[in-house]
């Protein structure tokens, strides 16, 4: 497992893939973003989106879930090898979140994250701060979402 010192700007992690179905798009929207173009096919056809599409927060939350799953696999493998596992998180926030294209029913989104900045934390000496550029692309290769987020990563050397 990579501690802060082991990370490099430019490192890319493949996060995973998700196919957005109509039922989950509507179920998410009903809970968190009940605008008609995320809830109802007919209304969505009349909107500027032209068809039912996922809430942008849904597209983002799926990245988070796949990220956690991806990391869990790495953690389990590291523990099986008897290695130490660095603590990760929480995140401080995000910026430049862009919903570049709608995510329509049946779209297959591939997510990845790339390290863009690494710096030592002034407030928490045992941690570093990692900024990553995360993105999702659909089956046509079009980027549908991208954002920068900054998160704490444990340092191997605490001093």
């Amino acid at each position, binding site marked *: 497992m990579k501690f802060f010192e082991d990370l490099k700007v430019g490192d890319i992690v493949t996060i995973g893939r998700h196919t957005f179905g109509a039922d989950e798009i509507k179920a998410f929207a009903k809970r968190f973003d009940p605008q008609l173009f995320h809830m109802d096919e007919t209304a969505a056809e009349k*909107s500027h989106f032209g068809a039912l599409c996922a809430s942008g927060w849904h597209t983002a939350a799926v990245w988070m*879930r796949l990220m956690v799953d991806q990391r869990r696999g790495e953690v389990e493998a590291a523990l099986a090898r008897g290695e130490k596992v660095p603590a990760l998180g929480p995140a401080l926030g995000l910026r430049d979140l862009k919903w570049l294209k709608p995510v329509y029913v049946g779209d297959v989104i591939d997510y990845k994250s790339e390290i863009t900045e690494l710096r030592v934390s002034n407030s928490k000496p045992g941690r570093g701060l990692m900024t990553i550029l995360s993105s999702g692309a659909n089956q046509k290769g079009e980027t549908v979402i991208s954002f920068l987020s900054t998160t704490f990563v444990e340092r191997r050397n605490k001093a």
Partner: protein
Amino acid sequence: MPKLHWEDFEPGAVAIYGPRLVTREEIVAFAAEFDPQPMHLDETAASATILGGLGASGWQSCCLLMRMICDGFILDSTSMGAPGVEEVRWLKPLRPGTRIRIRSTVMDKRESKSRGEMGMVKFLFEVLDDTDAPLTTLTTTLMFGRREPRP
């Protein structure tokens, strides 16, 4: 007919939405679905993390904010969605039992260069706790239909 059009948003306008009680059960349920990390799932494991106790996923704060502004005004508007979010800052953990409110401030508005039927409104949304301390702040530009399309 939707009531609020682009023309109705005035820079400087402030509104409050909520309150809404955030329960332990929904924090754990959201985390189990979208962000299954120990700090969002389990008190004991969470106490050993930087959060120092169970706290909601930051994405849940964003989703709750979205729902509260939908109920607050977006569903009663000509909303055309949003191209993105300039910034989200997770300042303090959202703890179980907090009654959150949303403070909405209109920061700026402008016409759309490419689409005469649409305009942009920039907002600062703050998720406040029971003491009015901001837990999460979110800056975003939303798109709204205009009452009078630009000629």
